[in-house]
Structures are given as C-alpha cells and as structure tokens.
C-alpha cells in the first residue's frame, strides 16, 4: 500500500474504533436497568 492510502485508512480506522469502543464501554458501564418487560399482549 502506498503511504498516503495507509495513513488515511489507519487514521480513519483508529478514530472510528476508538469512538465505537469508548461509547460502547460507557453503555456497558452505565445503568443497565431498563423497564420491566411486558409482552403480554
């Protein structure tokens, strides 16, 4: 791969993977109590 392609790809991937992990970890660590399930109808 040429350098500019590699830099573009890796920097984009790092940013995206970083944000994805950050927010998902926040979700996992956050309050997970949801409403009571009711599928009675």
């Amino acid at each position: 791969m040429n350098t500019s392609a590699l830099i573009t790809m890796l920097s984009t991937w790092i940013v995206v993977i970083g944000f994805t992990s950050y927010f998902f970890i926040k979700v996992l660590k956050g309050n997970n109590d949801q409403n009571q399930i009711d599928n009675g109808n």
Partner: protein
Amino acid sequence: MSKTNQKLPVSIKAEAWGSRVGLVLAMAGNAVGFGNFLRFPVQAVQNGGGAFIIPYLVSLVILGLPLLLIEWSSGRYGGQFGHHSTPFIMHSLHRGRIWKYVGVFGIFCNIAIAAYYCYMESWTMSYVYHSVAGTFNGLSQHDVAGFFSQYLDVTVSTTGIPFEAILFFVLCLALNTWILSKGLSAGVEKTAKIGVPLLILFGVFLAWKGINLTPGEDGAVFGGSEGLNFLWTPNYDSLANPKVWLAAAGQIFFTLSVGMGSIQCYASYLKKNEDVACNAMSAGFMNEFVEIVLGSAIVIPIAIGYLGIDRVVDLTGLGGLGLAFRTMPFLFEQWGPVLSALAGVAFFGLLFFAGITSSLAMGTPIVGFLQDEFKWRRKPAAMTFGLIILFLGLPTVLFFQQGVFDEYDYWAGTVSLVVFAMFEAILFAWFFGMKKGWAEINRGADIKVPLVFKYLLQYVTPVVLIVVFVSSLLRPANDDWSKISLTGWPLHPESIIGKLIHKEGTANPKYFADRYYSELDGKVDSVWKQSYRYYVQVIPAGKTHEFAQTFTLDASGKLLISKGDQVIKNQPLYEGRVINRIFFVDMSRLLLLALFLGISLLVHIAYTRRKKENSI
C-alpha cells in the same frame, strides 16, 4: 415559537426494552444494512477513493450525529405521551396542524422500504442456501451472473426450486412477522442480540480473508492490499466536486437509517430520564465501525484481488447489489468447496442479519401506531404489517425487471428520507425550540454533548438538509454544477423533477403498444423461448455480460432480431402486444402515493378520535 403539547401521558407503556445493551444493539442493527457492505465501498470508489472519507466524516458530524440526537430525543419525548410512531411524536413536539401529517413519512418510508428491502433480504437467504448446497460450484463467472438474472425472473425456475424468488420472499416475510409478533424485547431485541454479534463475526472473518489475499494463491491475481490501496488512496481533486459532497451526505442518510422514523419509534420505548446521548453515539459509531472498517475490507479487496482494478471499477457501475450477487459467489468459488461454502454463508449470512435487524425496525412503527391509536394487540398488528408488505412487495418481486423495485427505492428510500429529515430538523430546532431540545438531549445523558452540537442542530443541520433537498430537486445533467445559471440548466434524469417528468427518455413511451423498440445500442447476446415468453438479452455497447439487460416479451408476437445481431436504440425488436416499463413505473408511483394518502387518512381518523376522547 414553542407551542407544545403539555398534556400528561395518556397511556402506560405496555412494552419496553429488556436491557440497555439490547437497545443499542437493536438500534445499531437498524442502522447496519446492506449499504454498509455494498453501497459504501462503491460510493468511495466512485467518489475519490480515500478522499471520500473527508466529506463523509464532515457529513457525519453536521448531518448524521445531529439527526441521531434529534430522533432519539424526540422519540423518547413522544413516548412519554404514549406515542410510538412519528405522526403523534411530531404532534407532541408541536401542535401545529401540519406536523402529524409530516410524521406520516415516518410510517410511509418504513412500509415502502420494507416492501423491497424484505425482497433483498430474501435473496441473501436463498444465497446462503445455495452456498451450502454447492449450487455455484463449477459455475463460470458468466453463469454466476446469469444465475442472479434467472433468480429474478419468477415465471421460470432454473435454480431447482419452483418460484424460488416468491418462496424465499414469503418465507422471509413470515420470519419478520413472527419476530415482530413476539414483542419488542422477546422478538426484536433478542434477534439483535444474536444477529449483530454474528454479523460482526462473519464480517471480521471475511475482512481477514480479504486483507490477506495473496497473489498466486487460490487463483488470486492481486493481494488484498491492492484493493485497500485503491479504495483509500486519496484523490483530493474530487473534493471540489459538489457531486462528491452530495454522495457523502446521501451515504450518511442511508447508513444511519435517519429520516425514516424507525429510530424515533425505538427510542419512544425509553423512560423519561434514560440516556439518549450516549446510546445514540454508541449505536451510531457501531454502525460506522461496520461500514468503514469491515465494509471497506470485504467486497472491494476480494473483487480486485481476482478481477483487477479496471474490471472492478467497471463493475461498480452495476452498484453494490450487482457486485455482491453477480460476482462474489464466483470469487468465493476460487477458495475451494469447503471454504467457498463457508465464505458464502458468512457473506450472505452477514447481509441477512444486517437486513433482518433493519426490516424489523421498519415494521415496528406501524405496529406501534396500530397499538397506540386503534388499540390493536401486537400479534394482529404484526400480521397486518406482514400482509401490507406482501401486497406492496409482490409487485417488486413480479415486476423487478420492469423497474418497480427501483421506483420504490428512489421515492421511498431516497427522496422521502431527505424530505422527512429536513422537516424533523426544522421542527426540532425552530418549532419545538432549541432550548427545550437541548435540555431534552442532555436529560439523563451519560456523556456531555459538546455545545457545538447545539449550534449545529439549530443552524447548520436544517440549512444543509434544505440545500441537499434543493440540490436533489434541481440536480444538473451529468452532475455538471458549473452549468447552473439564472436562465436555467438541463436537469439530471435522476433529479426529482427529472424523474417526475421521465427525463431519462425511453424508446417505448406509451403504456401499451404493438411494437417494442430497443432502449439501447448493443449486441443481442441470447434469445430463448420459455413458458410462452421470449427472452432477449442485450449487452450494452462497450460493456460486459454482467451489464446485460433482459427483455421479456409475449411469445404470441414476432421477434424481429436474433442472437448475435447488433441493435441500436429505437430499432424495433418485436411486433406484438407490449406493456411497457413506463406503465409499471407510473403504477408504482400511484401505489406509493395511495399508501401515503391511506396512512394520512388513518392518522386523521386517529387524531379525530383522540380529540373526541380529549386524549391529545
């Protein structure tokens, strides 16, 4: 400006999400669709390679993320008043008479898109089956491409299963209906919890294979890095072209599933103080991970590894769907019988999970609407969704070649999204009011939303959406924006006005005719007769067999051409009774219009009823 509904909640939420992770996965599953794997890489190839990521990320920040925040927070807000579909969610944001009818788009888009989306989903189901059954083993590239064309022709069965396309469509629809009838947590959420991780697993496996392709091994001509290099090498000149920016904005719409009404519907099942900001970002970025990381590392690297850059650039003209269904099974074949079956299951399986988690989101708004407004139970509401999709979807199955599928995709899956997103951004920022809107976004938030988003939401996003809409309305021919002038300019056939007036032009402009004329210059590749019909396959001049167009004509008439003939546009090909494509195109538009008006009528009835009951 703010004049909102201050009434107390009118109904207790009967359904809710089982867990926060389940909600985020369901939202991510809603967003992740075929477009992540098939549309994004093709758009990137056609719009400047690596430089496409710049307008793409800018669009994500100024359009995508703000729209996610708007849709999540307005959905949760409407849910507090017992509303789970956009007509009354929008009404809860502002009591202006028009908004509940604008909200009709949020049910209409989902139903109309589901009608053809479930059909695509059924292709992936069928291709998983054929990958396991080894149908593609030993087929040439030409035959694999031909298999897809034959699959789409429901009148004959050359795939071994009678009426296969209809069978798989009905099967897929039944599965969707069954899952929807199980409820939000036991159906939709459970599917997302299984589907999304599996999809990512399959994607990682294929991306690994794609990146690690080695020239000379398994018949590969180039390494996987060749494809990545091609996809990610920036062509900065393309940034000066407005077409590239519009393509990036369009991709953000498709990929995040904004402007549809399904996000509001899912978010409406949240409690008043539950987080929306962090959840929205998490689901949004999960989608971006699948698109930018996995989506860029599968189709293009594998295709270039076997076919080379020039051929793949040519094939992207078919769009992502053509590349996936006409080409990929042949490429997997090169990996040997076991690995090709595995790769086929992984590739079409991931597309299936991407599809079903999206189509379930499309079914939820109408189910919620029928439950809220007409007090239906979930099962009959889900069944009704299934029947509506069967009725609306069958024309796309039966008349695929006549352009019904493309019409649904254009009007419901493209134009309506932009229109709805534009109105909801204006409603949220300028009518609901940014002060209340910002408070709503931040209530219960697990992250601090940067203040810049407040200004983006108020000024930039609505203005950009208006610009995108006007550009789509008046897009110039050949995307040559330098031709724009006060004295007028030729319109692109794909512009909204161009579409309305059939600007693309046709050699067969009448609904019914006694002759059929060639629509293109090219060569007759094959002619055959089957089940009382002639099939004429023409390869456009300068193109390869993947681009062949098949015309089906009644065998009671007389063919005027034979195999090997060169044909030119407007040349008569056939004499006999013909129903032209333009008939099917116009009828599809009427059907979509009738659907929109029908939903509007239901909204009107529901509103009148609520007024009488004083519950709105």
